[in-house]
């Protein structure tokens, strides 16, 4: 395949960025999207141009490190991570536009890399169960109905890639936050801190500069792990409950 690639290049957080155009021949449809960028980078190095910086790590769809806007879609045209997107999803002669995640709360660090540390701070604000090591009761002392455990698992599969934020016209992290609140809220172990958790996380969310949710649904459409939109309803419900409880 022959491709024309339009790629966002930005030397640093404060530098001005611009789209650059590169032609790439001999792209095999078996390449992952990131391997295609690897090949482009080798060619750039050959001609003494600095390679394009982009994030990736596990390259098997689970670590959440990769993430690009491809032709305006978070992670590209398929419902998957960028590392699991393959070039067979594109056609010969195509022009592909590649940009970093777009959101105020995810500032660009360089080229296609963004800073997602706001997600860590969101978790630190309440996305956990307070249990010190060694003080846990015997695992079978608390029963969890199978369906609750399954529901908790299904939303705990969030990989924290940030596609939901990048896809959202408001730059909201409600899907990410809702997934965590639902995961822990489904389990008996998560109940004691349930009210505090949602209140603190929502406050942190807004403090980080993520936008509000207006139920557009682009987040769930872009989510490679198919986290359902109703985690946001759960988030709102938990918030209302907490407020009723006087938070």
């Amino acid at each position, binding site marked *: 395949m022959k491709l024309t690639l339009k790629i966002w290049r930005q030397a640093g957080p404060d530098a001005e960025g611009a789209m650059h155009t590169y032609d790439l021949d001999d792209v095999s449809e078996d390449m992952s999207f990131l391997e295609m960028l690897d090949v482009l980078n080798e060619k750039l190095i050959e001609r*003494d141009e600095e390679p394009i910086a982009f994030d990736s790590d596990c390259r098997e769809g*689970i670590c959440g490190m990769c993430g690009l806007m491809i032709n305006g879609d978070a992670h590209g045209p398929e419902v998957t991570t960028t590392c699991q997107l393959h070039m067979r999803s594109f056609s010969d002669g195509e022009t592909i536009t590649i940009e970093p995640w777009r959101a105020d709360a995810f500032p660009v660090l360089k080229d296609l890399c963004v800073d997602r540390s706001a997600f860590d701070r969101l978790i630190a604000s309440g996305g956990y169960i307070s249990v010190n090591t060694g003080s846990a009761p015997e695992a079978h002392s608390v029963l969890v109905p199978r369906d609750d455990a399954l529901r908790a698992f299904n939303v705990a599969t969030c990989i924290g890639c940030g596609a939901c934020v990048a896809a959202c016209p408001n730059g909201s992290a409600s899907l990410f936050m809702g997934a965590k609140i639902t995961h822990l809220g489904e389990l008996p172990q998560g109940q004691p801190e349930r009210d505090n958790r949602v209140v603190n996380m929502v406050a942190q969310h807004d403090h980080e500069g993520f936008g509000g949710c207006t139920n557009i649904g682009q987040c769930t459409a872009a989510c490679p792990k198919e986290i359902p939109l109703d985690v946001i309803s759960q988030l709102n419900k938990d918030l209302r409950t907490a407020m009723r409880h006087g938070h």
Partner: protein
Amino acid sequence: MPDTTSAADASRNAELDGEYDDAAGYYTPGEPIRDTKAPDGPVDQRWSTRKFEARLVNPANRRKLSVIIVGTGLAGASAAATLGEAGYRVKSFCYQDSPRRAHSIAAQGGINAAKNYKEDGDSTHRLFYDTVKGGDYRSRESNVYRLAEVSVNIIDQCVAQGVPFAREYGGLLDNRSFGGVQVSRTFYARGQTGQQLLIGAYQALERQVAAGTVETFTRHEMLELIVVDGKARGIVARDMVTGAIETHTADVVVLASGGYGNVFYLSTNAMGCNVTASWRAYRKGAYMGNPCYTQIHPTCIPVSGAHQSKLTLMSESLRNDGRIWVPKNKADCDKDPRDIPEEDRDYYLERIYPSFGNLVPRDIASRAAKNVCDEGRGVGPEVDGVRRGVYLDFSAAIERMGRDGIQEKYDNLFDMYERITGENPYEVPMRIYPAVHYVMGGLWVDYDLQSTIPGLFVTGEANFSDHGANRLGASALMQGLADGYFVLPHTIRDYLADGPFEHVGDDHPAVVEARESVQSRIDHFLGNNGTRSVDSYHRELGNIMWEFCGMERTEDGLKKAIDLIRTLKDDFWRNVKVLGEAETINQSLEKAGRVADFMELGELMCIDALNRRESCGGHFRGESQTEDGEALRHDDQYAYVAAWEFTGDDQPPVLHKEDLVYTAIEMKQRSYK
């Protein structure tokens, strides 16, 4: 029990009598090394004894003591959270943009624990026994017993954190058996157990960040260890965003930096996994234990082209129903497999190993696949002139169980395969090939998980201690969390009880020296003006390692590999090209430092493999096999841990042997008959 005692092997061992040493000239023999921390006495009392004997640190003093932890996988994040809770001041470092991305997250299968919830005969002793035996009697019994002992606490801890393990309808935790084990002791969260466990540890860590006991340094890479008066006192790290070279000092340093399988370039490891933290420590005096022990999985998705960056594991359970074959004739290799008639197919595992067939052990299945591909009968795309793939064919199983039956059993694996290869495995046979998955070698540690440098502790995959020559399924996750939650916090307090420690300032000569050495490496790479990219060197190194230090090692091959690596290393330092600047994200620069260390590690792995003229677990020496092609151990010669000491660039390393003594378990030869 399918074992024969080692007495039966006395005759085979006789052939090893004599003075030869394949690795002579490549190393210098050194004094034996011994683990002085494990208490004597019955194996089931040792951990209680050690915990009791380990000195305490008064809570008010803990906040004056500082800990650096490098790596945020299961071993690192759990240790950071636990030490933070205890009240120490913890600095946690990872090269990723978030601690949650460490490669533990990719583990699929499950985590073992001797809970005996199924009342099927499991016990701490049985988990201990299975693990020592599975490691081919090359791990330490004290450590493994402790691992089995604390395994039950891990499950309690994770459940309390909200890890959504699979449950039965009554609300109890579900278990499955895994990796050929005869009891159901594996806890799991669908195929994403590692992810859920890591998220649990990461959340516990972030909770401590909020509490102010743990400070995280993401996108930071440790590039040097600071050793003051013989003790580990800090690290030099590069902020991978700003390029700033930072020195961080502390009272104790913990390496939880994972494995080095990426020395092979292609592996199932994440792209960023590297050996640098361990290697820098090795060069500062920490011994490296059993570096040649590598686990290779037979069922990965094969390489599709020279562009390939990594390999993806497919669950081994597929071998239960798939039949493995290649064409009998080379001329058929590029045909559609469906057009190759039954009589022209070579079901080579069923042919060579009729009793086990497609279920032969991992190492045998892996070597057999390599052999048929080397003969030119591999299938799939040709990469560098060779087709490296064999068919894993489900057509008979689909006929037997129906498509729905297969779908129910393996659905997500079939989907994953199709996503990566673009082929529908219900229609055409899957293609598989072995790949590097895990390394059992790592920095040598004593029972306290302390390396030969006082104040440097090593946990998880980065140490050598618990898996012997082979890692069993669902045991790596167990070790990571055991070390971080339940072992290190006890042993490290004994060390910290010596505090308060003298302050080490940035102007201390050892700090200055460490900083300067990091700076000079960076300057060298950026000023080298060579002609070849870092990745091209890494690929070439990987090819050498895979060819000669991979599934099967021989004396000639390993010697050749050492020569090739030395030449390549020389060329790398003179000719590598790294563009860009230091004061920004520079991924080529990051990789250059790692590949430089991989080159040195690769050479040591070959020397270690050369020294060990026996086959055990994941280490297969061609010279040491039974007539049936099974791995043949030599307990009288090699029942030791090889602990290697660095002595200087281009100097032969010193080999210290730690004899493995078993008091609670009898050494037996494995047998698959």
